[in-house]
């Protein structure tokens, strides 16, 4: 089981978003998660950016500056190979956590 579930979940969300969108800036990641989860999950900026920078230090994502669709300059993040491996293992881990929690909840 993951050591810190909340943080693990945030990392998983960011990694998955990047793998779905290919490349995105911080604001786009927040909006994507919000939209896709039907406003159930709102990632706070205060957690997002430290997480992104940590992932960059770990070599899971790489960053570059580019212009957004609306003409603003922003820092875009994309998954690296290590990031994809990380995503696979985290996804597997997450399904197990969910399965485990589910089993506990359903125990009568």
């Amino acid at each position, binding site marked *: 089981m993951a050591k810190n579930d909340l943080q693990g979940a945030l990392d998983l969300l960011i990694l998955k978003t990047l793998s779905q969108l290919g490349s995105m800036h911080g604001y786009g990641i927040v909006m994507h998660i919000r939209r896709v989860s039907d406003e159930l999950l709102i990632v706070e900026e205060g957690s997002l950016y430290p997480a992104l920078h940590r992932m960059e*230090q770990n070599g899971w994502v790489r960053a570059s500056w580019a212009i957004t669709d*609306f003409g603003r300059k922003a820092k875009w993040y994309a998954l690296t190979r290590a990031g994809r491996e990380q995503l696979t293992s985290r996804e597997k881990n997450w399904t197990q956590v969910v399965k485990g929690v589910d089993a506990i909840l359903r125990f009568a």
Partner: protein
Amino acid sequence: MGLFRRILSLGRRARMEHEIDAELHAHMAMCIDQNMAEGMSREEAERDARLRFGSPTAMRERVSAEDAALGIESLWLDVRAALRVFVKSPGFSLVVVATLTLGIGANTAIFELLDAVRLRALPVAKPNELAELRIDGGNHGLGVSDSQYANFTVPMWQEVKEHHDPFSGIFAWRTGDVQVGNPNQSRRVNGLEVSGDFFSVLGIVPLQGRLIEPQDETGCQLSRVVASYSYWKSQMGGEPITAHTTILAERRSVQVLGVTPPSFFGIIVGSRFDLAYPTCTPPHPRGEVFSYSVMGRLKPGWTLERASGYLYSLSPGLFAKTAPDGYSSEELKAFKEFRLAAYAAGAGVSYLRDQYNSSLEILLAITGLVLLIACANLANLMLARASVKNREIAIRMALGASRGRILRQSLLESALLATCGALLGAGVAQPLSRILVRSLDTSGNTIQLAIMADWRVLLFAAAAAISTCLIFGTLPALRSTAAEPVASLKTGERGVAGNRERFSVQRAMVITQIAVSMVLLAGALLFVRSYRNLMTINPGIRESGITVGYFGFPSMHIKAENLAAYKRQIEDDVRAIPGIENAAATTIVPFSGASWGHTIEVGSLDGPSRFTYVSPSFFSSWEFRCLRDVTSRRATPMTTHWS
């Protein structure tokens, strides 16, 4: 990759912070764009974005904390901040550093002594292979012992020289005096009598010429010597050694074979030899005179236990063969029951070690306690200072500094102080331990110890610094970051948040200080008391105004029939010198460490006794008190079994 980036980005803090700012700014801008697209006015949009975003500074701190490169950079910033604090309060820093200097210095000084006396190995090849051969439990005062290191008689040495399976090489040595210079202005220097294999077994490489080898063991006339480096430098002018280099020793011209390297001082830690000369085997070696110390180098695969086992099985034959003549059957029985054993000798032998080992350990413990008191004191000082700094810390935390960051800075301040203290302490340790050595010196016996800072001493000083830093730094640091920022700010300028709790900690520390001080005080008083006792103890004989002169009659070549008259003549001559009250001759000077023992039988009772030859005036010159005078009743001279 990560580390590389970190190192590359060192010194680029400003750029990286700028980049983070730009990224966060872009985020805000996009947020505002979105809000405006949803129909808000510009002001509303900006306000909403700022509210959702929170403090930009705190955010930047949190993001940059993730960038490890900045971690190293900010460490440097913290160091600079700490230095600024010290410069701003020089009095405080000076007191702390001075306290630590004294505390760590005193500890290191004692440790240096302990290191020199006990821990450091002899400066020879593979010292851990060296073993000393001794009689298990000592010789119980039987026979005559030349010195406290002497535990082999010449016949014993001759036996063991032939049977030393556990050892690849074996040698005997003893100390002696050598008379150098013209007869009318000669002086005695420290001699070291060594068997032929001494230097080769120890693995000493000559600095000049060659060292003593087995073929040098010829006659008992002193004919060749090896000089120590210090003797060669100071007394022989450091001239190169040739085949014709000679010095005047024992009234003859003696060839100097070579010079030992500077690091080699002999086998005894605490003294230094001047001249080494080969042993000789007298035609009729005496079986009761213990004169040599024997050491060997263990063969690979042999341990001390195995070697002791070998020596144990060798002992019955050896002691049966080397038993001295003229002793009673009980004494011979005791002699034949002696068993040899091997002891580690890699650190040499030392009476300093035997005499002062526990004293040094006690001293180290005492100075350790003093350091502990100093730490408690400093911790209190730091706490007092921390209460002043509370407000500053609260503001920093409110601005987004993490607790770890503040803790780090606080610990860093302590670490810097401790480092300064340790460096200065290591500096003052050397003179301190020299003073200590000098205080152990007696006029007749100078102690030559190499006091130097080797890796062990430096390690010790570093360990002392780290532990003091942890003791006096951690608690104040934890305390200062534990307080709620809001509470600290509310209490105003004085910043006395968590008042009661802090004072209880300080109280505990004061109690600790007083408790430890009491232990030290009691110890010091006891010490003074013992010292006074030692100073005022009455040994029953005269203690002051005694001058001892040693005469080497054998080397004077006086005819045996004239010797007694000659000795009387010397006594009379000395007594005739103005200012001399009395003079006496003896073979063993009281309290000198040498001994000569016999078993005394009185009827069915027997027990060991110590003997010495004395001239008639001995008891009156030493002012021995007579408990009961028996000379008048039984005037028969005492005879001994000893020939």
